[in-house]
């Protein structure tokens, strides 16, 4: 099969745009060709998102179409979605990018020194 990731009920998505950036949810229903109904843990809740706000992961769980939030959360827990998500490159890359953005000036300087100026790095370490 050429395509491995589908927009389907139960597909786990990573949210790449919008207020919930960095979080992940499960597709519970489809509004139309461009909008999804996503549900997830407390951080997101149940909401409608646009297709372009979302990136698909390889994880898919088994849930009935349009099921309740409780059902979604128990299914997510049962399949160990959180652990699987933490292993996906999408989540890892976002976490790394986020960490880099949170760095302070001194931390950035330390990285710069460590990469190209070993003597500087030694002096900072003292």
């Amino acid at each position, binding site marked *: 099969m050429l395509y491995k*990731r589908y927009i*389907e009920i139960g597909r786990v998505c990573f949210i790449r745009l919008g207020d919930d950036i960095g979080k992940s949810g499960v597709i519970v229903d*489809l509004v139309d060709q461009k909008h999804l109904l996503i549900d997830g843990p407390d951080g997101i809740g149940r909401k409608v998102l646009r297709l372009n706000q979302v990136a698909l992961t390889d994880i898919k769980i088994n849930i009935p*179409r349009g099921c309740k939030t409780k059902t979604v959360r128990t299914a997510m827990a049962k399949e160990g979605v959180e652990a699987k998500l933490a292993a996906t490159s999408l989540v890892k890359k976002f976490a790394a990018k986020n960490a880099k953005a949170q760095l302070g000036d001194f931390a950035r300087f330390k990285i710069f020194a460590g990469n190209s100026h070993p003597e500087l790095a030694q002096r900072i370490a003292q």
Partner: protein
Amino acid sequence: MKFKCAELKEFEIVGRPLPKGDEKMPVYKMTIFAPDEIVAKSRFWYFLRQLKKVRKVNGEILRMTEMSNSSPTKIKNFGIWVRYDSRSGSHNMYREYRDVSRTGAITQCYRDMAARHRARPHSIQIMKIEVVKAADTKRPVIKQMHDSKIKFPLPHRILKFNKKSIFVADRPSTMQ
């Protein structure tokens, strides 16, 4: 005219002609979809004037409440009965939209009418909006979403273009 950057709101407006003395005046209720209260009141008087012999000067609004959306996380099929003025006449239409709320569906309707028929909001009248059961929907665009095992890939996915990579050695991958 009507300024519609965000989703419309649903208002239930109740008004009546001003009583002259002890006379009991008829009371009229309307559901108006508008971006804010001011436009809602204005449209209320616009329609009431067309239907009954009462003007804003001779009338009063008894109650205006903003209606909240019921079940905002349940996807519904809405059938909307519209009357609109085209360049050469007035027409009735029945349109269907899939949305999570009444206001969302009506907003979609206004956008859609503008796009497909160049109808401006002032020439559109919403006659009725109802939730339609999946089996009773008529439009294929709506019916195609009623597949319980619906599934589609995102072939050739083009996300927001990164201007830093205008010239690259290899063609970027569009696999999602």
